[in-house]
């Protein structure tokens, strides 16, 4: 369901006299849906560069990295401590990547270990050297079945926010019914 459809439901139920902040709350609520794993995506395959170890999801809508597929395997995530224990010089290693670790959680930048030591010759669908990143994401067009929980989630945020129409009681009740609707959908599996 497009963003405009969700926001028109928010208006119809909330009777807002000031609609200047509801878009921000829409974005916040959809971002939280993505963070909780409701909205997932797959980042398009990336070409690797020889000697370059750090990569990030190409899409600006990505929130969290769920998995990194490299060649024929799903790379395990490793902490920097684990990599240090396994190999003191892990940052300088070159070879066939076997794990990844996050460099910067806010930009989802991750480092492959060891850094790839060759350049793939093609981007064919079976190219064994491409990188494929599974992510959770935010978006402006959510599936139709999340419309009700999203509408009440937005209203709960909007009504709790200091404004001319702030109504904490209404906000609390909107959150309650949003939770009921979220429960009806079940948890992402």
């Amino acid at each position, binding site marked *: 369901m497009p963003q405009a459809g969700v926001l028109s439901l928010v208006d119809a139920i909330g009777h807002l006299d000031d609609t200047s902040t509801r878009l921000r709350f829409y974005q916040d609520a959809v971002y939280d849906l993505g963070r909780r794993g409701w909205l997932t995506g797959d980042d398009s395959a990336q070409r690797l560069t020889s000697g370059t170890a750090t990569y990030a999801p190409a899409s600006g809508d990505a929130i969290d990295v769920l*998995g990194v597929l490299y060649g024929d395997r799903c790379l395990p995530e490793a902490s920097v401590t684990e990599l240090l224990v396994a190999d003191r010089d892990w940052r300088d290693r070159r070879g066939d990547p076997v794990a990844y670790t996050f460099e910067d959680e806010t930009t989802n930048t991750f480092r492959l270990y060891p850094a790839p030591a060759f350049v793939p010759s093609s981007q064919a669908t079976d190219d064994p050297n491409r990188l494929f990143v599974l992510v959770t994401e935010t978006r402006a067009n959510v599936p139709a*079945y999340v419309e009700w929980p999203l509408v009440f989630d937005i209203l709960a945020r909007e009504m709790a926010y200091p404004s001319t129409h702030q109504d904490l009681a*209404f906000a609390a009740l909107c959150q309650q*019914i949003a939770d009921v609707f979220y429960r009806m*959908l079940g948890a992402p599996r």
Partner: protein
Amino acid sequence: MPATAGTLLDILARRVRDPGNVAHPRDFARDVLSRCQRALNAALGLVTRDDTLVLDAGTPQIYNVSAKLPNAVRLLAVRDGTRQLTRMDWRFLGAADSSWPLRRGDAFTTWSLIGWDRLLLYPAPRSTGGREAVTVVSVGLTTALTTDAIELDLPNHTHTLLLDLAEAILLLRDRQFETFQDVLARLTPRVAEAVAAGQG
């Protein structure tokens, strides 16, 4: 006999003390009822649908559910011809086959959901010749109630819960907080039961 939207809207209007549809225009109330039917079916899983998913050639076999199956709410099963595929958590696939992302085979054996929105089929077909689609069974979106004459998709025994949901929304819209809380208190345990029954 299945109830029509009009029948339920009349009951709903009486429940919220608005028989003339003054506070809540009939078109709006019908829209609320329609969306509530959709939400309730997501919980109960009573209205299902079969969709054909046309296969891509590449690996890994990951499909965007919202884009490819826009009327599917929750995937229940995947069939390749008459053969039902086994469901598996995608994070465990590596334990069964460490080379799963590029694995090709003669037939699909497994399907997984990555979050809500990505369907993974494994292994990728060696060739698409002769088999170009699979059937996806899902809890479907119910028919939009655009007129009073449209019959509801959900069976009659669910209509009390459906009316409770729609009533709660209209009461909240009308800022009738005390009555809303009564309806919500009545509704919440029954929704929990419905979710347990519908989603196992």
